[in-house]
């Protein structure tokens, strides 16, 4: 097993953004084999703080949410709530000493397409700079030997 | 030692009364009190001692009053209900009387959140109105709250505050009436800058015959600067500083603003003297006690008459 750390991000995005199709999804997955875990959601309003926290807790070094542009939500205010929840979650992780930048929310701009691949890569890069999540790789533990990230008895990295 | 309230005597004689204000020091130094006593003696008929004003911890009002008394000044003991429950309030009233303090001003007090003890518990067991009533009952009936009799009732001239500039306007006079019926014998008002509103309030009070039932002392505070005027307008609760006053202060160069402030103050006192129902003036020169003499002199209120 190589001990080199590769950041893993959880990427939540609203299925209603025009770029949220299957092809885009597969392209990102292919390019970043396991480093980007994509979660399309029916509406960004479906995102709960718990989703973001559990992602960070279980497998991700960072969590990003992409929503439709303000005023563009099919459910009117789903993106508004997504933003607020992401902010609450960010406050919460900061309060336990985790970098707030590990949670990012990106709103689309009306009339402009949202480059999911670009966002994923930008965020990956940002997370690379911040470094491994101390949740998954606790202090004094080299990346790759983390013990804290297993679920149902299986290592999440089996999947990633 | 004089056993009577000078303020009461002056007012009863129909003389236009003058009171001033003395803030106790933020320390245990009696000289600071004595120094201020020196500045105000002979100038004012009585001197109010504030009770932890703006909720900042200072020497206790009761102690400072005692010092003033010893220095030959007739003190007005200000008491706020913020810091003491009904037991402490009543016991302090007895203590004050026993020390020869003959004037008490019953107040609610500035909220604790404004001062240097924002975490303090605000007691507010009684409100100022109930406190007035309690003091009056102690003095006149010799009874404390709950009806128990005192061995010897306190001797006090009882005052309260009024703010003609706060809202709701219509209720202000009602509240004045309530304070009078609760037991207030004299009223010291909030600083007057907006003379129009003050007149209006006074008119309403006159209409209800209140000016006949209580001695009203108009409050004045000399402005030190335009900045202070603005600050008082914007930041001090219950204060009404009209734009014309601010303009007037701003209209003179900085170094002459103090002089202008005194001039305004003197003019205000002059106007107050002309108003039927105003029985005196209460000069609150905040941390500027040395100006009191000049103001009163220019207002023609000095020297103070002798009562003997």
């Amino acid at each position, binding site marked *: 097993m190589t001990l080199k750390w590769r950041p893993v991000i959880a990427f939540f995005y609203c299925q209603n953004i025009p770029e949220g199709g299957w092809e885009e999804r597969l392209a990102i997955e292919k390019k970043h084999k396991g480093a980007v875990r994509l979660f399309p959601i029916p*509406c960004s309003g479906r995102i709960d703080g718990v989703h973001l926290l559990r992602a960070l807790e279980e497998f991700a070094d960072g969590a990003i949410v992409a929503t439709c542009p303000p*005023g563009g939500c*099919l*459910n*009117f*205010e789903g993106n508004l709530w997504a933003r607020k929840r992401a902010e609450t979650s960010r406050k919460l992780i900061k309060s336990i000493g985790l970098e707030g930048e590990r949670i990012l929310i990106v709103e689309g701009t009306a009339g402009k397409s949202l480059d999911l691949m670009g966002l994923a890569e930008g965020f990956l890069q940002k997370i690379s700079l911040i470094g491994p999540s101390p949740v998954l790789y606790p202090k004094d533990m080299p990346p790759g030997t983390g013990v804290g990230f297993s679920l149902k008895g299986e290592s999440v990295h089996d999947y990633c | 030692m004089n056993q009577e309230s000078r303020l009461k005597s002056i007012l009863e004689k129909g003389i236009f009364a003058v009171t001033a204000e003395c803030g106790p020091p933020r320390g245990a130094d009696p000289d600071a009190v004595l120094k201020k006593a020196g500045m105000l003696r002979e100038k004012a008929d009585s001197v109010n001692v504030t009770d932890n004003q703006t909720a900042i911890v200072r020497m206790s009002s009761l102690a400072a009053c005692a010092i003033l008394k010893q220095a030959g000044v007739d003190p007005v003991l200000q008491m706020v209900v913020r810091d003491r429950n009904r037991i402490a309030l009543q016991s302090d009233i007895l203590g004050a009387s026993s020390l020869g303090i003959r004037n008490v001003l019953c107040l609610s007090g500035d909220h604790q959140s404004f001062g240097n003890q924002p975490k303090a518990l605000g007691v507010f067991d009684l409100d100022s109105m109930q406190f007035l009533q309690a003091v009056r009952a102690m003095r006149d009936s010799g009874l404390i709250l709950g009806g128990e009799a005192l061995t010897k009732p306190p001797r006090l001239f009882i005052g309260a505050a009024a703010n003609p500039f706060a809202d709701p306007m219509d209720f202000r006079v009602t509240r004045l009436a309530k304070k009078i019926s609760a037991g207030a014998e004299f009223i010291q008002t909030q600083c007057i800058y907006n003379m129009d509103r003050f007149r209006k309030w006074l008119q309403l009070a006159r209409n209800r015959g209140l000016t006949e039932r209580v001695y009203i002392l108009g409050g004045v505070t000399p402005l030190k600067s335009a900045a202070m005027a603005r600050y008082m307008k914007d930041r001090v609760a219950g204060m009404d500083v009209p734009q014309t006053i601010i303009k007037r202060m701003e209209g003179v160069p900085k170094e002459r603003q103090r002089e202008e402030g005194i001039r305004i103050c003197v003019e205000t006192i002059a106007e107050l003297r002309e108003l039927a129902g105003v029985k005196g003036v209460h000069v609150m020169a905040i941390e500027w006690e040395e100006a009191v003499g000049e103001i009163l002199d220019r207002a023609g209120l000095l020297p103070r008459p002798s009562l003997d």
Partner: protein
Amino acid sequence: MNRERGFVFPEVIKTPSRFRNPIGKYRLNRSKGCISCGKCLETCTRDVHAMVKGKALVRNHYLCVGYDCENPCHQVCPVKALSLRRNPDFETMGDYRWSPDLLVSAWHMAEFGRPPEKGLEYRTGNSGGGFDKLRILFSNKLKDRVDCNSNGLEPDLAVELNRREDNAHRIRIEVPFYGGGMSYGSVSINTMLSRVKAAKALGTFCCTGEGGYPDELKPYDEHVITQVATGLFGVREETIQRVKIVEFKYAQGAKPGLGGHLLGDKVTPGVARMREAVVGYPLFSPFPFHSVYSVEDHKKHVDWIKAVNPRALVSVKVSTPTDVDMVAVGSYYAGAHIIHLDGSYGGTGAAPDIAKKNIAMPIEYAVPKVHRFLTEEGVRDKITVVASGGIRTPHDVVKIIALGADAVCTGTADLVALECIRCHNCESGRGCARGIATTDPELMDLVGLEWGAQRIINMFMAWRSEMIRILKKLSISSLKDLVGNTACISHIDYS
């Protein structure tokens, strides 16, 4: 209106949804910026907005006609606090056959007694064939023709059910549809009563289905068709004597050739008593009648009913196999008054998906086949052809009659009027979560009797008015003239 007897149709009474938030096609959002100025209330003519304690709110999203609106509130709002969207919930409802538009239109008709004026496609679904590709055709010739309805009378929609002119009852239904069989057990007693009450008001009938003839239906005997199916559940001489029409069910369109199956959960004490069965045990209706293996056997069957109740009309309900035409003729010769064809897209309480999708043919194919064959045999005038299985709209009725039916049976449409949402879970859990197809006492009470009856009346009054409008436009004065009149319809693939 029935010209001879002066039948009076029931009144339409506005009957809103049972649910707090009726679902419409559009949603309006009022943002925090709203200043409650009331401009939207002034603008909207459809009662979408309301002012409650000084606060403006969107009370009736479902009445909004969306982009079809002539003065949109969201455009007049001075602070741009209103925004309009397609309702995302709307998109999740319905299916190819009952598109969300059709569901919501039916709800609209059931509430207001008239078709929706704007914003909804209420005539066809999205199944991509059959009715949904058929169109009523108003040819150019109609424009020159003198309006045959100019005498001021409405086109006559009534249908004579006994065409054999034997000694059985002469029954005329005032509207060209009656309620198809839905058994006690598959639907609640409230649903049954709502349907039959509506049938009475509309001058037509409603069938009990095969689950017996509950006593609650007694006051409506004159408008009940009782069903004799293979399980013979609740069938007694007395029940057959009580009614004017008896229906033999050979097969059901949704599960042709398979018989019926009532899951044990639905066999509540009431159902068990009615069906003379044991509580909690599943009940099967076998297939077929094991006493019937030929037309002769079939005739004996029909004769049996005629012996018990000589004046009863006999209806024979069959599904639509390749030889449906032969079956129809056989039924005629066996003595039936009504041949009821139940097409493969009909409703059911529960059926294997494989059967619903694959077995037997859609009603649109069966009716012309039967009509043609009966005509060729020279007996078309002697038997009434009733079609069912996927009749959803007044347009479907017109189309199927033009293809050769005399009248139709409705089932699912009635339930949709009661706010069935076509979730397809009639059989799961405690039964229908919306209280329609259930025997769960708590869920059952979700449908009130008066409410249900009025909803169904309203919807069918809307159907009726729509059919009258179409007939007038077709310059047809009597529905009889539409039967088999294929020139009135066109298929968009072959037009």
